[in-house]
């Protein structure tokens, strides 16, 4: 840890030395947050309520990889596929059996939010009961290679995180902008009633939204798991990063969520220049509250 009372010149050199490493760390954190935030924002745009079980999808996927990859010894790419599928399927089921019926009963966004809190609690307890609440590593099935670029060290896993996150985000944006499905989702997000009247099967669209959103969140959870490991309590961590990134980026705007995610990644990592590193997790919340007070609509306007 840096002592802030140290000579300024020394501090300056030190900052210069760790600058490339901080950039790399920020990009990796941002890539993980991006998947979580983009998918959270996607589901929020379509359903208009804060789904507090979003981080749980990510944790489900990471534990599926732990089980199929490490316990059963399936090849990594297969385990990742199963993990993503697990998250996507559980998201679809939760919508079908909990959120959808609640909406049919005319539940307000608050009721849905509280119900999602219930889902969050249930998933957390089930995972803790099956796997225990201690920390598990899932990456030791892969050989990690170490790279160095401009004095910043990173692993092959981290390179994968960056690339996969970028590819998935871009692919997702292309689907949103260029396909009929993207337009249908935009229509449902805009006005569910009118979409129904013009003949869109909104239930089916919602199911797809949850499937895709859950899957992308799942991938985020898996990548985070490969980087650091998994623990049931990560659900809150994932959820909060997703919510904060989506809100400060501009809720309802997919590019905003991406922007917000990388912004948090950079602020958390560069924050240690001025604040001791153990405050890293608190920084994002201070940022959220500052944004909620001064610019509640976020950086980018809703699309």
């Amino acid at each position, binding site marked *: 840890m840096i002592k802030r009372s140290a000579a300024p010149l020394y501090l300056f050199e030190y900052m210069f030395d760790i600058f490339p490493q901080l950039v790399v760390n920020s990009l990796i954190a941002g890539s993980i947050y991006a998947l979580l935030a983009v998918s959270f924002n996607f589901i929020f745009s379509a359903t208009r309520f804060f789904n507090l079980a979003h981080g749980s999808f990510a944790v489900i996927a990471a534990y599926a990889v732990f089980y199929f990859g490490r316990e059963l010894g399936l090849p990594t790419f297969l385990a990742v596929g199963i993990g993503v599928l697990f998250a996507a399927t559980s998201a679809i089921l939760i919508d079908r059996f909990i959120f959808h019926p609640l909406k049919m009963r005319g539940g307000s966004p608050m*009721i849905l*939010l509280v*119900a999602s809190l*219930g889902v969050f609690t249930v998933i*957390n307890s089930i995972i*803790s009961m099956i796997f225990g609440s201690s920390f598990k590593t899932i990456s030791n099935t892969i050989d990690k290679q170490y790279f160095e670029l401009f004095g910043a060290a990173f692993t092959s896993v981290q390179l994968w995180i960056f690339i996969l996150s970028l590819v998935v985000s871009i692919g997702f944006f292309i689907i949103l902008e260029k396909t009929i499905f993207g337009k249908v989702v935009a229509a449902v997000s805009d006005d569910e009633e009118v979409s129904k009247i013009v003949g869109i099967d909104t239930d089916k669209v919602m199911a797809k939204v949850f499937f895709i959103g859950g899957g992308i969140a799942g991938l985020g959870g898996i990548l985070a798991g490969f980087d650091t490991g998994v623990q049931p309590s990560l659900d*809150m961590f994932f959820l909060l990063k997703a919510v904060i990134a989506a*809100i400060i980026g501009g809720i309802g705007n997919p590019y905003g969520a991406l922007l917000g995610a990388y912004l948090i990644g950079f602020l958390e990592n560069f924050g240690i220049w001025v604040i001791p590193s153990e405050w890293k997790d*608190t920084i994002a919340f201070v940022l959220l509250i500052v944004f*909620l007070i001064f610019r509640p609509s976020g950086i980018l306007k809703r699309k």
Partner: protein
Amino acid sequence: MDYIMHLSVLVGVYAILGLSLNLVVGYSGLLSLAHAAFYGVGAYGSAILMKDFGFSFLSAVVLSVLITMAVGVLIGLVLSKFDGDYYALASLGFSVIAFGVFLNWRDLTNGAFGIFGIPKPEIFGYKFLAGEPYAFLVLLAVIFTFLICYFVVNSSFGRVLKAIREDEKALQVFGYKTTLYKLAVFVISAGLAGFAGTLYGSYISFIDPGGFDDLVSVNLIVVVILGGLASLNGSLLGAAFFVLLPELLRFVGMPDSITGQMRQMIYGLGLIALMMYRPQGILGKFRL
């Protein structure tokens, strides 16, 4: 018998937390997830005052409740800008920030190691040890809290609060400063949560940040909603149910290692079922 007294103390602490949170969630309609922050400030406040500064129990309680209320003013001022789901998120943010402070302000809170050896209360030379004396003390505290909440709810102040919950705009038209009313009830609620914290810390004699994290806020919301929104008796019921459920599970032969998780699961399922069939909670009078 000691065990029953132990459970009674815990029920009492949760009852105070539930009653005070119900003022904000049930009577004002604001889903606050910041309650664990105040609970923690109260617990840390009195523990530090008694251990490091040699305050007596009563003065430590009064002072740390005042500190908690001051923190409540600050947080409440920020939160007064929000309502609905944004209120829930922003207040959750404060829970996490408070946890960060308990964990990282090591000079004051001893970080993750927590504070050991918090003295038992001594009032006018009588030391309240664990068991019946402490249970009696907590019972008095619960009655005291209940009376405060009862008064708040049934006074003209409480009626204005309920009116704001139903239609804030209309009340503003009539010239009520609605923000001020919401802030006042938030600060009262915060102070009472801090009070619960002081009782808990002295009883368990050890506190660490994990006892006051965001999950505690979530659990308290469940206590309030399950028992019943805008019902003081409901909060007592919710608190009793929360503390006694793991014991009940143990009683039917469930292994100790999973009773905590089982409780979480039953709570989650209960919350979902309530939202479906009875969104105001068991004894509740107001639905979100």
